[in-house]
């Protein structure tokens, strides 16, 4: 009994202390807000926001509610985080592997990249890409077309828009291809385990993913046309492109700086992971007759991934949180739209900051859970 008590008491004290501290802050805030005549409440979320946002993934204008403005900001934050994570991962893996390359030039270049980009504060890099690179870009009327259809200008990147006919058939064809690939992979594994034969799964997969959608064009009635951006004059010297899709320069600068910065850290994780696998593993795998590709795929990578994933998760979280620096260059993310404009228009500082904090917490925890799940999946399975 005594033993149990000794276990419980410290826990209890901790809980009470936490409750008391939070209680004190809440009470204090309440009293102060009452004294200063500030109401507390989340009712403002349903009110009309009456401000516009530059760039939104969902339909939004000032006649929508503050809650909708919150969603706009949240989706923009998720958009830049997802694109950033994908680019940073690809770049990070390439640079990480390049740092181990026996080629002197590649090796040193990768090392230089890592040391350069990870040692400059991120906010400065964002400003650099936005203001320095922006000034270097041409005005819309001076822009040279890339491949005849892309226009990179100071007002953004204009790309052709896809106009689909029977898009659903195309979509189903891709789903069918993916299902077929999964079935073939399972079958190939069985064949290998029972007969020792190898089926060229990779080649078949590539074939499927191209042939099925192609068929949908040929016999499924799917067609695709492009809407190329066209220059339009607003005034003597001001022009924009109309039609097509425009990516604002704020999004491009932010994605670029976040990816370039985070990729350096991921590259180091990858390098550590690969170097963390014993040399003996590679030699042992080669000695039982595996090809170099198989050595990498079946022996080195599965072990390296276990070392790479946990620190990389941290980098994904960092990237997501760092995306809040967007406010500095007018990219309408959660902080700029909701914790910025909406906070100012309503004056609901405590409510809005608490929602924003909670949102970032939820985002980070979701990434964390997803990565932990993946980490468990690739961890050593004890049988």
């Amino acid at each position: 009994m005594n033993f149990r008590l000794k276990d419980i008491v410290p826990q209890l004290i901790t809980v009470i202390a936490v409750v008391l501290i939070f209680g004190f802050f809440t009470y204090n805030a309440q009293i102060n807000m009452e004294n200063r005549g500030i109401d507390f409440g989340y009712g403002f979320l349903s009110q009309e926001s009456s401000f516009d946002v530059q760039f939104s993934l969902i339909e939004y204008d000032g006649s929508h509610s503050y809650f909708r403005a919150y969603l706009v900001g949240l989706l923009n934050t998720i958009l830049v985080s997802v694109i950033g994570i994908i680019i940073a991962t690809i770049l990070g893996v390439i640079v990480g592997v390049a740092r181990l390359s026996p080629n002197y030039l590649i090796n040193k270049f990768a090392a230089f990249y890592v040391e350069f980009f990870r040692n400059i504060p991120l906010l400065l890099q964002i400003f650099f890409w936005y203001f320095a690179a922006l000034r270097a870009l041409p005005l819309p009327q001076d822009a040279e077309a890339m491949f005849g259809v892309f226009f990179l200008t100071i007002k953004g990147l204009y790309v052709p828009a896809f106009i689909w006919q029977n898009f659903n058939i195309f979509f189903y064809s891709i789903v069918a291809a993916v299902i077929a690939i999964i079935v073939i992979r399972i079958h190939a594994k069985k064949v290998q385990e029972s007969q020792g034969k190898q089926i060229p799964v990779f080649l078949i997969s590539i074939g499927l993913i191209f042939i099925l959608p192609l068929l949908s064009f040929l016999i499924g009635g799917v067609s695709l046309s492009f809407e190329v951006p066209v220059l339009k004059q607003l005034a003597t010297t001001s022009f924009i492109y109309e039609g097509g899709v425009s990516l604002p320069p704020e999004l491009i600068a932010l994605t670029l700086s976040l990816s370039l910065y985070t990729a350096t850290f991921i590259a180091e994780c990858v390098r550590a992971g690969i170097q963390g696998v014993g040399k003996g593993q590679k030699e042992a795998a080669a000695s039982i007759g595996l090809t170099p590709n198989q050595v990498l795929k079946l022996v080195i990578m599965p072990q390296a991934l276990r070392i790479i994933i946990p620190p990389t998760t941290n980098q994904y979280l960092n990237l997501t949180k760092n995306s809040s620096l967007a406010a500095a260059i007018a990219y309408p993310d959660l902080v700029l739209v909701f914790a910025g404009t909406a906070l100012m228009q309503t004056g609901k500082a405590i409510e809005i900051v608490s929602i924003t904090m909670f949102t970032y917490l939820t985002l980070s925890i979701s990434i964390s859970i997803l990565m932990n799940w993946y980490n468990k999946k690739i961890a050593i399975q004890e049988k």
Partner: protein
Amino acid sequence: MFKYLKQLTSLVAVFAVLFAFTTETMAAKKSKTLKNTQKKGFVRCGVSQGLPGFSNADAAGNWTGVDVDVCRAVAAAVLGDANKVKFTPLSAKERFTALTSGEIDILSRNTTWTLSRDADIGLTFVGVNFYDGQGFMVRKSSGITSTSQFKNGISACTNIGTTTELNMRDFFNSKGISYEPVAFEKADEVVAAYDAGRCDTYTTDKSGLAAQRTKMKNPDEHIVLPETISKEPLGPVVRQGDAVWEDIVRWSLNTMIEAEEYGITSANADSMKTSDNPAIKRLVGAEGELGAAFGLDNDWSLRIIKQVGNYGESYKRNIADTGILPDRGPNQLWTKGGILYVPPAR
């Protein structure tokens, strides 16, 4: 008998202590902010992060501007020295939180007086020190000379957290023009982006446009369009709930404006004590007991005029002579065709 005497003396002592306590804190009891300010020895004033003519710091860290002068006037009135001000530069987004949380005691940062701000968020506007309106700046080379030439797809750079964003939407909606709002947190970033050609137009209060134009790479390449799309009465703000402090700030501003009306300047203020006009004598502290109501001495208004100057002097020094807005427009006295009109100090 002795027993009662002892009780009586202690009772007297208690009353004496209570009375002493109450007399000592009469003025301070009315205003916690005044008491704290006098104890600290400086006025805590929130200003902009740099808007020439309104609140701008030079290389040595000296703040100047008409908004700065309001805080200096309060310091002169309350502490006797216009230099006893601690300036806190604030972004548009931070300003109200800084005031309501008690980090500053006066917000004098080209802030528009609106109903929702006055009523909702624990603030009280004390007056107007600059009548402004929102306008647009464009490049001269664009050939645009009026907002009626704006076309669909125009991109407009501005600041977040201001009435500007709302006015801009109202304006473009009423004209049926689609536009791309590009909103930055800091004014310097707006200027940099507009100057680089990111936006076709830059919109904010006209005084702000005139001031920011001086920061452009080549100011002559830009013009402010004649149209004004909103009313922007800018003025100092205080926290709700301290009526005495509110009055002090309001009447410090009013004193500057009324001093101009009666021709009292920093140079001639002392000699005005012998004036025949009772209104002038009241303003320079030679007649009446106007300071007493705030818990201040009678020279409070004289100090404002001597140390900071009247409104006209402040305007000339900060806005006209710096070439920002040489023409006073509506910010002229009502007696000279403007709309500056303050209640009488009596």
